[in-house]
């Protein structure tokens, strides 16, 4: 087995719930209960689950935005510890994220060029930043002239392209997507899905995609991990898991997905 690029073991995280009574004991909610995962170089892993399954907590931990109560994360064998930004520059250059809602994730007062160049500056990436911005804007199918405009001048799909360009700017090896297609209309969703697949191919990216949408995961990911109540109930090659799920929850989840009638000729 090859050495994993990104590996997590025994990730556990609890949150304190708001107190119901002034002197009552504080209750805790265990959002993650010992999750292991590995992402190979050039691999693609889809994390599937419903609300409250712990997906978002998992993403926060994998991006070192939050500290696990137990367990650890390694990138190419090196431990990733959340802490001062300076200590994580090496990791942030390698692992970047695309979030669900590009309206919320892009600064409305910054030009597209400033938005895309920001990680280059923050992470002190060497090289010609202007040229790099042009390069990634072209890679996501935007005209480099778009750089002088502001996010509100773009449609939802184009905004998500800008967010992807920003994620690609520092030349990462891993792209984490937290529901990157969920806020998009169906036609645009298909286009951005195709773009992600194409970019992963061209830049040799490994994908970690968190989604409630099993269709998207099936089209983009080789492996899948199914989460429920903070636990990974099933993981393995997407084809096997989706074709013959072994855990009852996976079966229930797959049975609930609405299907289109088969096309006339397939």
């Amino acid at each position, binding site marked *: 087995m090859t050495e994993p690029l990104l590996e997590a073991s025994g990730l556990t995280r609890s949150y304190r719930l708001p107190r119901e009574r002034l002197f009552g004991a504080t209750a805790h909610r265990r959002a993650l209960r010992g999750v292991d995962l590995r992402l190979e170089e050039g691999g693609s892993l889809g994390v599937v689950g*419903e609300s409250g399954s712990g997906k978002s907590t998992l993403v926060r931990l994998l991006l070192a935005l939050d500290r696990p109560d137990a367990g650890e994360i390694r990138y190419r064998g090196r431990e990733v510890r959340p802490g001062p930004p300076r200590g994580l520059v090496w990791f942030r250059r390698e692992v970047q994220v695309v979030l669900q809602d590009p309206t919320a994730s892009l600064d409305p007062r910054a030009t597209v060029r400033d938005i895309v160049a920001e990680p280059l500056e923050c992470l002190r990436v060497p090289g010609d930043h202007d040229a790099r911005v042009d390069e990634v804007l072209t890679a996501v199918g935007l005209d480099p002239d778009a750089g002088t405009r502001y996010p509100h001048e773009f449609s939802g799909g184009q905004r998500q392209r800008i967010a992807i360009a920003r994620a690609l700017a520092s030349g990462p090896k891993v792209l984490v997507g937290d529901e990157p297609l969920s806020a998009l209309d169906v036609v645009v969703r*298909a286009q951005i*899905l195709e773009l992600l697949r194409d970019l992963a191919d061209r830049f040799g990216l490994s994908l970690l995609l968190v989604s409630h949408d099993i*269709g998207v995961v*099936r*089209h983009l990911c080789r492996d899948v991990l199914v989460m429920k109540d903070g636990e990974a109930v099933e993981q393995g090659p997407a*084809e096997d898991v989706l074709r013959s799920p072994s855990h009852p929850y996976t079966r229930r989840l797959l049975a609930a997905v*609405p*299907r*289109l009638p088969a096309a006339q000729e397939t």
Partner: protein
Amino acid sequence: MTLLEVAGLTVRIGGRTVVDGVDLDLDTGGRLGLIGASGSGKSLTALAVIGLLPDAAEAAGSIRLDGEELLGRSDRALSRLRGDRLAMVFQEPLTALNPLMRIGRQLSEPARLHDGLSRRRAAARAVELAAMVGLPDPERVVNSWPHQLSGGQRQRVGLAMALACRPALLIADEPTTALDVTVQADMLRLIDDLVVQQGTALLFISHDLAVVSQICRDGAVLNHGRVVERGPLDAILRAPSGPYTRELLAAARATSWDATPDPDEVAT
């Protein structure tokens, strides 16, 4: 018998035509799926039917319910029909419910307003309605607040309120889009059961072809405010005739999950 007859419905907002000559027919107890991407005019069509268009919108054409023209009626006349003959379930159950009103009062409000139920009978009716939509522990749930319920439970409350007076027509605008898939499946089954039980006609609006095809046999596809294709969904989805429907369907297939994918199409 024709229940709803929409003819040449046009809606303009700020000089822009957002619904452009839509014709729709729905029989008593019938069902129709209205399909379109965002901005296609599907929600505005629904709002026009129930008389809740934003003030800035101008509607023209004709909307007849039981042969009576609704367009141009006063708000007072329409509010006698809304909740009684016509009702709607919205996409976002949290914003559709009043956060400052207990669940029981919201559930019984349509019955109090339209049937003039007494306080006590209204309270009993609220419990019945909560039970009808399968809310857990109906006696207790009527005393809770909207924020204490899950998204799926809130949407059940929305459905119960809509069906409280056994309306002739239920308009459901993306009622399951904000829900998890397993919750969505339960909700679709519930809508299906209840409209059959009550003999309610259903106008089901969604961008999701797969969801619409689960609950409706007939559909109309909207693009830029126009109906571009209509007929049995089965036929539309197997062999779409218009270019827009083909594009929509191709996109849906490219992102949807299919139990038996083409071997060469599986992600590699």
